[in-house]
């Protein structure tokens, strides 16, 4: 966990945001992320992100559920304790379809949600740095990652020219940590050492 310097530009219109993203990327700035209050379709492509493969994971979890249900029921009813139910076959596949289907859905849904939470680092008590409180309200917050060479003043004015209504430079923690939102987390760097 290390702190980094970021230049933040806030936009209030999608129609301004999209050309701005294009301009900022062609100018060679590295966009860390754009925080939006709702899913803006096409923004992921404009930022050059790959498609998510979450659905593939969902498919794999689903198949796991199918196999678990089929395997368990088959073993139980043909090997472990073959039960005579009205003289019907022990391997009664049609009668198992409902349970196999339900377990497919259950595994897939639970697995996907857990994977989603893991990938996005979402959990109770997880805390992250928020660049702007209105990012979940009505602003599209573009965050540029700075290196040692970045001239922050220049980047700020670039964002203003691209249509940002508010710009600032922030030094912030990049990752996530455990904490509560009603308390400021104090990091080691912020402590003043008394000699």
């Amino acid at each position, binding site marked *: 966990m290390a702190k980094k310097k970021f230049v933040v530009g806030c936009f209030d219109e999608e129609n301004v945001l999209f050309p701005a993203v294009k301009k900022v990327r062609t100018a060679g700035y590295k966009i860390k992320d754009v925080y*939006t209050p709702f899913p803006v379709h096409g923004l992921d492509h404009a930022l050059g992100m790959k498609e*998510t493969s979450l659905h593939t994971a969902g498919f794999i979890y689903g198949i796991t559920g199918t196999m678990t249900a089929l395997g368990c029921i088959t073993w139980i009813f043909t090997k472990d304790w073959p039960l005579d139910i009205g003289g019907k076959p022990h391997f009664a596949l049609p009668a198992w379809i409902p*349970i196999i289907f339900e377990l497919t859905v259950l595994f897939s*849904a639970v697995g996907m949600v857990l994977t989603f939470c893991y990938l996005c680092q*979402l959990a109770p008590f997880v805390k992250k740095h928020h660049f702007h409180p209105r990012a979940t309200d009505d602003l599209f917050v573009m965050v540029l990652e700075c290196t040692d060479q970045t001239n922050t003043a220049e980047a700020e004015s670039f964002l203003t020219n691209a249509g940002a209504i508010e710009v600032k430079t922030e030094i912030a923690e990049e990752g996530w940590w455990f904490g509560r939102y009603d308390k400021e987390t104090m990091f080691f760097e912020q402590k003043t050492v008394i000699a």
Partner: protein
Amino acid sequence: MSLKYESQIREPLVYGNKNYHQVTEDIVRPIEAKPTRLWYIGFFISVSLLLFGVYSVYREVVYGVGEWNLNKTVGWGWDITNFVWWVGIGHAGTLISAILLLFRQGWRTGVNRAAEAMTIFAVMCAGQFPIFHMGRVWMAFFVMPYPNTRGPLWVNFNSPLLWDVFAISTYFTVSLLFWYSGLLPDFATVRDRAKTKLRKCLYGIASFGWTGSTKHWQRHEALSLVLAGLSTPLVLSVHTIVSFDFATSVIPGWHTTIFPPYFVAGAIFSGFAMVQTLMVVVRKVFGLQDYVTIGHIEAMNKVIVLTGSIVGIAYLTELFMAYYSQSKYEGYAFFYSRANLFSPYGWSYYGMMACNVLIPQIFWSRKLRRSLFVTFFMSILVNVGMWFERFVIIVTSIYRDYLPSSWSVYYSPSIWEIGFYLGTFGLFFTCFFLFAKYFPTIAIAEIKHVLKTSGESYKNDMSEVENESTEAFAHKYAH
């Protein structure tokens, strides 16, 4: 900025001159304000009902199922009727959020959050009935297949009653996950504008540290879409499996192959009616008329008249098949026990026909579909009718066994049976009152997503898009 435009002719989904901030304001305000007196009164009544239900169930657990007026022939009475009734109600939420998402119905955004909440609470209520019907409820875990020291003695995987266990628990889990994953961004909205420390802390925990990052939104969209894809067959499977509880038996009146589609249509019918009952009140109390518009109410009334008619056709098909099969027992079940005003339970059959088939036909009239008063009144009638339907199916099929010696005396519920039912109303409304006060009752992020294409003040801009050539439109919006 998506590859979509809304025709100008369509009614707006959001009324008023709104911007994104205004949407947040409107929906979060009830959470931040103190509860009104009406809320306290409603909540108090719900909790009282719940407590009465808890006492009724306590008596059933301590003294046994004998506290209910079930008898040797009517082994399933009010309890299973109420179970099927609540499960049916719990179908609208997932239908609205999943099937309408796949069909790209924009109007779902206004009502999906409350409908999903209602689904979850209804399924919670439904689950109580089979669990306590077991009698020795402390052994309820026997329905789970786990290696045990009794053989091991496994559950019967060929039994529809076990399919039900899997179906209902899966349905509850998946609906809960779907609902909560949609709530994360909205909790984050409440958290970021919270003024008090407690609210910031609690909504901070509930929002799981959501930031609104583009990558997270991309995954969130993929998650919602796949969960919708999974929930669509799931929601159909659940009531299908509930109908198998009856259809796979050999009881006259239950042994019917049309049960699955007929039950699913009935479930959607009653679920939408319950959504109407709640939304007509919620939009008024919280001043959300701009988001849950008359257009939304009308769309749901259309679903009600459609599914009500499907159910009506199913009733007539049943009657026809009972005649056409020339089976004596089927004929007795349908023409003596049910469609006969002078049989002991004939009143319930005619009540069902009136409430489910005849009266909803008034919704062919646009004026009545768009009347709040009629909608509210109808929504209650529909649910009364759907309760009758389940009562008819269960009780009129079993009150007279094959042997006249085992014909039952007239079945009417005991006070504790009624108390149990009232108790689930208490549970349902207690949960719903808490939800309405502390959760965003409308999906904020989803409303914002459709605002610029379907909001009243933005609709005019759509004419420009409408006049563009296909090539120009695709060039501009496709990435």
